[in-house]
C-alpha cells in the first residue's frame, strides 16, 4: 500500500488542531494547580469561552473583540470561583463542579439564539508557504495565531515557572501557603491571579473550538474536553512540556477514533472516548510507585483551603 504523504500530513495537522484546546486549557489549569488551587470548572469555563467568543463574533463582527471577549468571559467566571474558594473559603472540588454545571447551563441558555448561524473564517498565517516543503510545510504553516500560541505556550509556561521570580512564588505558594505567608507573600492574591489566568486560558480554548476548530455554536460543544484537559494536567505530573506530549496523544486518540469509524474498525466508540482517562489512571499508578517523585511533582497544598491566622 502506498501511503499518501499528503494524507499523513493531514492526519498530523488534524491531531495538532485537536490538541490546541487541550494545551491551552491544561496550561492554564496547570498554573492554577501549581498555586495549590484545584479548579474542576475547566469544562464550564471552556464552554463559557466558546459561546462568548461565538456570540461576540456574530454580534460585533470583530474577531479580535471576540477572542479577547472570550478570554475575559473566562476570567469573569473564574472570578466567581476565586471569590468563593479564596475569600469565602469554600471547598475547591464542590465549587469547581458547580462552576462546570453553571457554565454548561448558562452557555446553553445564551446559545439558543446562535444555533445554526454560520461562523466566520478565521485568518491563517504563512499561507503562502504551505506548498514549499512536502509533509513539513503543511504542518508548520497556514494556521491561526491561536494555533501557534498554543504550541508555544508549554515552553513559555515552563520558562515562567522555572526561571522567573513570579513563577517561583507561584510554586512556593502551592508547596506551602503557610510558609509563603510567613515570608510575606500574599497567598490569596497569588491564588486569585492564578485562578484568573487559568480562566483566561480556558476561555481562549473555548473560543478556539467555536471560532476556529468548528466555527459554529453547538450546545455542549466542548464535549468533555475540559475533563480531558484536567486529566492531562495530572498525566503531565504538572510539567508543561509533558502537557504538549499528552495533548498530542489525547488529541490523536480523538482523531483516530474518527478514522477508525470511517474505515469500519469495530472498536466501541465508548472505549476510545474513555482511553484518555484510562491512560491517566495508568500514569498515576506508575508515578505513585515512587513516593518521592510524586511528592516532588505534585503541588503539596493542591485543593486545600488556606486560612490566614488573625
Amino acid at each position, binding site marked *: 500500500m502506498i501511503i499518501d504523504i499528503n494524507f499523513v500530513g493531514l492526519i498530523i495537522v488534524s491531531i495538532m488542531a485537536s490538541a490546541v484546546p487541550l494545551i491551552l486549557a491544561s496550561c492554564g489549569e496547570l498554573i492554577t494547580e501549581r498555586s495549590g488551587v484545584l479548579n474542576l470548572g475547566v469544562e464550564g469555563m471552556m464552554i463559557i469561552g466558546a459561546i462568548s467568543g461565538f456570540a461576540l463574533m456574530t454580534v460585533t463582527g470583530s474577531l479580535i473583540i471576540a477572542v479577547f471577549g472570550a478570554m475575559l468571559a473566562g476570567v469573569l467566571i473564574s472570578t466567581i470561583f476565586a471569590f468563593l474558594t479564596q475569600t469565602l473559603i469554600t471547598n475547591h472540588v464542590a465549587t469547581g463542579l458547580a462552576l462546570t454545571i453553571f457554565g454548561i447551563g448558562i452557555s446553553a441558555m445564551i446559545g439558543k439564539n446562535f444555533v445554526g448561524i454560520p461562523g466566520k473564517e478565521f485568518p491563517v498565517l504563512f499561507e503562502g508557504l504551505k506548498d514549499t516543503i512536502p509533509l513539513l510545510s503543511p504542518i508548520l504553516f497556514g494556521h491561526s495565531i491561536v494555533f501557534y500560541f498554543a504550541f508555544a505556550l508549554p515552553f513559555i509556561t515552563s520558562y515562567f515557572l522555572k526561571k522567573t*521570580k513570579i513563577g*517561583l*512564588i507561584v*510554586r*512556593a505558594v502551592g*508547596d*506551602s501557603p*503557610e*510558609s*509563603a*505567608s*510567613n*515570608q*510575606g*507573600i500574599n497567598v490569596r492574591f497569588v491564588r486569585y491571579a492564578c485562578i484568573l489566568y487559568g480562566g483566561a486560558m480556558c476561555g481562549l480554548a473555548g473560543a478556539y473550538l467555536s471560532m476556529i476548530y468548528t466555527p459554529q455554536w453547538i450546545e455542549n460543544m466542548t464535549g468533555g474536553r475540559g475533563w480531558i484537559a484536567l486529566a492531562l494536567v495530572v498525566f503531565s505530573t504538572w510539567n508543561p512540556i509533558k502537557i504538549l506530549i499528552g495533548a498530542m496523544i489525547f488529541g490523536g486518540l480523538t482523531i483516530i477514533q474518527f478514522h477508525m469509524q470511517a474505515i469500519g474498525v469495530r472498536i466501541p466508540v465508548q472505549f476510545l472516548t474513555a482511553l484518555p482517562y484510562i491512560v491517566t489512571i495508568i500514569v498515576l499508578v506508575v508515578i505513585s510507585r515512587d513516593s*518521592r517523585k510524586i*511528592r*516532588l*511533582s505534585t*503541588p*503539596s497544598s493542591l485543593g486545600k483551603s488556606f486560612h490566614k*491566622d*488573625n
Partner: protein
Amino acid sequence: MNTNLKISNVTKIYPGCVANDNVSLEFNSGKIYALLGENGAGKSTLVKILSGVIIPDEGKIYLNENNLELNSPSDAKKNDIGMVFQHFNLFETLSVFENLIIDSDEERESLREKIDSIMRKYNFSIDLDIPVLNLSAGQKQKVEIIRCLIRNPKVLIMDEPTSVLTEQETSELFLSLKKFSEEGILIIYITHKLKEVMQLCDEVAVMRRGKLVSVSEIKNENIESLANKMVGQNLKTIKKKKVKTSSDQLIKITNLNFTSEDPFETNLMDINFSVNRGECLGIAGISGNGQSELFQVLSGEILSDKNSIEFYKNYIGDLNPQERREYLMAFSPEDRLEQAAIPQMKIFENVALNNFKSSNFFNNGLINENKIKEHSKKIISDFNVNTDNIDLKSQFLSGGNLQKLIIGRELITSPDLLICFNPTWGLDVGAINYIHETLIKINEQNKSIILISTDTDELLKLSDKISVIHKGRLSKIMDSDEVTSEKLGILMGGGN
C-alpha cells in the same frame, strides 16, 4: 554597632486566654538571651509579635529607640529582625537555592556568591541545588538561618530550635549562635529545655501563664532554680528506686532482622534482647539509627518472622498491633498527632481506637458511646489530663495533655508491657515529670517497659538496663548503674 531591642508593655489577649500580660523586656547585643517557659506560657506569642506574625493588642516595640510598626513578617524583615520558626518555613519541593532567593531582591549570581561566603564562614555545607525535602532537620534549620543571615539581621530569634536536632547538630548550632553573637547579632533563644539555657545563654527571662516572672543572669541560676520559676512550684526530683527485678522473662527478641525497600529507612540487623517482668529496658541512640523501625517491628506495624518475637511463651512476630494488644502489649508511638491519635477526632473517639474484644466499645457494629465516654472520663481523671471535655478534638490538646491521654489509653487496660518511643519529646517540665512518674509506677507494679528514647538523661533516670542502637544494630545490654552518659555518647556515635 550596639543593638538595643525593647519590648514595652505588650499585651495580647485571645478569647479565654491572656497570651501576653503586660510584658516588658530589654535586650542588648553581645549577649545571648533565653526566653524560657512551659508550653503555653506565652513565649511563642511574644516572638511572633516580634516577627510581625501576630499584632499585639497593646504595647510597643523599640529597636535602637525607634518605635517599630510590625504589621506583617515583611515589616520585621525590613527592620532587620530575623526569625527561625520551630516549624520550618521552607518549601519542601523547591531547591535550597530557590528557597533562599524567594524573599530576596538580589540577582541570582550575587546572591549565590553571598550564600557561598556565608556557608564558608560558618562551616555549613549544603548542596544548594537539591530539593529541601532531601535535607536532614539540622540542614533545614541551617537553610533557615542562612535565609536570615542574607539580610544581615541585627536580631536573630530562634524558636525552640533544638527540638528536631540530634545532639551533634545541637552542639554545632550552639557554636554558630555564639559566633553570631560575637559578631554583634542580638540573639533571643526560646526554649523550655533548661540544660540548653545553662549551656548557651547569658541572661534568662522566664515566662509563666503569659506573665514575665523573672529576668536574671545565668551565673546566678541553676537548673533547679529555673525549673521552679518556670513551673511556679517546687518540683520534686524523681528518682527511681532500684529494686531487684524478677527473672521471669516476658519478651524475648531473637535474631530479628528488617530490610527496608525505602532508602531513607534504616535496616535492622540481628537484634537480640529480652526483658523481664518489672523491668525497664532503655534503648538509646541518635535519631534515625533504626529506632522508628524497631518500634514498628515491636508494635506490629511491620511484621516479622513469627519466631523472632516471643511474648510470654507465645510467638507473635507475625501478629498485627491489634492482635498484639490482645496479648496485653501496649504502644505509645513517637508522633503523637500522626501515629498515636487522629487530630480531627474527638478525645473519646481516639480512646475508642484502642479497642479490645473485651472492651465492649462496639455492639453489633454500632458504637457504644456511653461506654466509651465513661471509659474516657476515667482515663482523663486517672491520668491527670487537663480537660473535662471529652468531646474536644484531640488537636486542641497541648502536647503534654495529649501524651497523658495516650499513655492513659494504653495503660488503663493494665498491659504487661508498654513500648514507648520518645514519650516526653517536646513536652514541658511538668508533663515530663508526670510521664516519668507514671512509667516508674508501672515498673513498680511488676509491669515491663521498653523505652526507646533519644533523651539520654531520661533513659538513665528510668531504665534498669540500657542498650544503644547505632545504624540498626544494638549494642550489648548494660546495667544502667554501670553506664554513664559519656559512655552512652560514645556508643551512640558508633564507638566502642
